């Protein structure tokens, strides 16, 4: 299904044609793609250890963040926007007892943090498949990552919708 979208970028005007991985995300995908399933899990664990600490302003106040309820363990995210540059900073909070969820968050952080809105919106939905994780990690578990990406995109679209009339006026 997803390959179909990719196979015909030229004939698709608008967003479908732009579905190219941003460079920092492409690097992560390559890193995973080169590994055996078992090593993929080890790399995911490494990522989970590298998830940046939340800035002081969000600590102990997850209610300012959005909970990704699709994850099998509590996960919160929030975005901060720089409209002048058109970029978004992404922050995640995930429990240490949920390394898989943390690992997914860390991949998205590494791959998307600080990118331009349209670059993030253009990231394909099948990212977890591109990472080649679907054998090492079952679909049940991978859904969490897809949901995180979906919420990040929704958050950006909502922000754009809010700020668009002001810019136009």
């Amino acid at each position, binding site marked *: 299904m997803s390959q179909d979208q990719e196979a015909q970028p030229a004939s698709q005007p608008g967003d479908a044609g732009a579905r190219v991985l941003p460079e920092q995300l492409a690097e992560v995908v390559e890193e995973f793609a080169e590994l055996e399933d078992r090593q993929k*899990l*080890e790399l*995911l*664990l490494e990522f*989970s250890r590298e998830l940046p600490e939340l800035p002081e302003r969000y600590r102990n106040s997850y209610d300012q963040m959005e909970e990704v*309820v*699709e*994850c*099998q*363990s509590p996960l919160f995210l929030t975005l901060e926007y720089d409209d002048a540059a058109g970029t978004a900073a992404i922050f995640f909070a995930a429990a*240490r*007892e*949920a*390394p*898989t*969820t943390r*690992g997914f968050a860390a991949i998205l952080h590494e791959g998307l943090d600080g990118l331009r809105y349209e670059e993030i919106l253009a990231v394909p939905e099948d990212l977890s498949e591109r990472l080649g994780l679907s054998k*090492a*990690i*079952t679909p*049940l*578990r991978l*859904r969490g990552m897809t*949901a995180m990406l979906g919420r990040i995109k929704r958050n950006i679209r909502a922000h754009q919708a809010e700020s668009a009339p002001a810019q136009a006026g």
Partner: protein
Amino acid sequence: MTEEKDFSQYAHPDALVSTEWVAQHKEDPSVVLLESNEDVLLYETGHIPGAQKIDWHTDLNDPVTRDFLGPEQFAEFAAAKGITPDTTVVFYGDKSNWWAAYALWVFTLFGHADLRLMDGGRQKWAAEGRELVTEVTAPAQVSYPAPSQRDDSTFRAFREDVLAHFGKPMIDVRSPMEYSGERTHMEGYEQEGALRGGHIPSAASVPWAKAANEDGTFRSRAELEEIYTEQAGLGKAEEVIAYCRIGERSSHTWFVLQHLLGYGNVRNYDGSWTEWGNAVRLPIATGDQPGEVPGA
């Protein structure tokens, strides 16, 4: 030290061990600890010294059929973990032992004799500040003769068994909104859905978590009797079927009914709502009431 719970209150007290018991027996060669988690990487971040990892997704399922391993494959798997037919296998894991109970249930199908859960699971062990290590201990070299069969009739129910069971008690252990049909998936597990929302007609709603305390341990026998025997109306039923969405939460309830309360024969319907809610020509009920027994 926290006061030890008296397991003799339960119908089969040997099916449960305390964290303290595990601490004292973790080096006993006749005991193998198996950690079974929802999170596939949690074991790697630290586990009880000597414990082996078991992942129900990748270890217990047949790669092709939607079913468990066959007897030969099970025997190979058990031997690879250092387990012989005489081994005391103690399961523990995250999320109040959901997946640990599931793994224990699957071992039960193969007739392994001595299976136990560590009360409170990983959470309690960690909360007590007990040792967790990242080193993986090589299992002892042993062999496990293949069981003659996987017994799918005593503790496991298929959809045909559920149809034949109508009129006898059934427990739906999913969340109230999944039961009523307002949602087709469990809260926190979006998209893991079924075509239709609701429950198997006549099944009583008892979300699995009612059986667990805050610290992940099982409630007392008196509390469990109040919940299942009284409120859910199981009474003195000889046969009960439990189900959820894919059979993991209902393994937890299966353990409670079979081992802690001592019901004569409890079966886990592992096809559960993902099968029933999608299957052609099977009746469902919606709303917060169990509904009528079909054909009654």
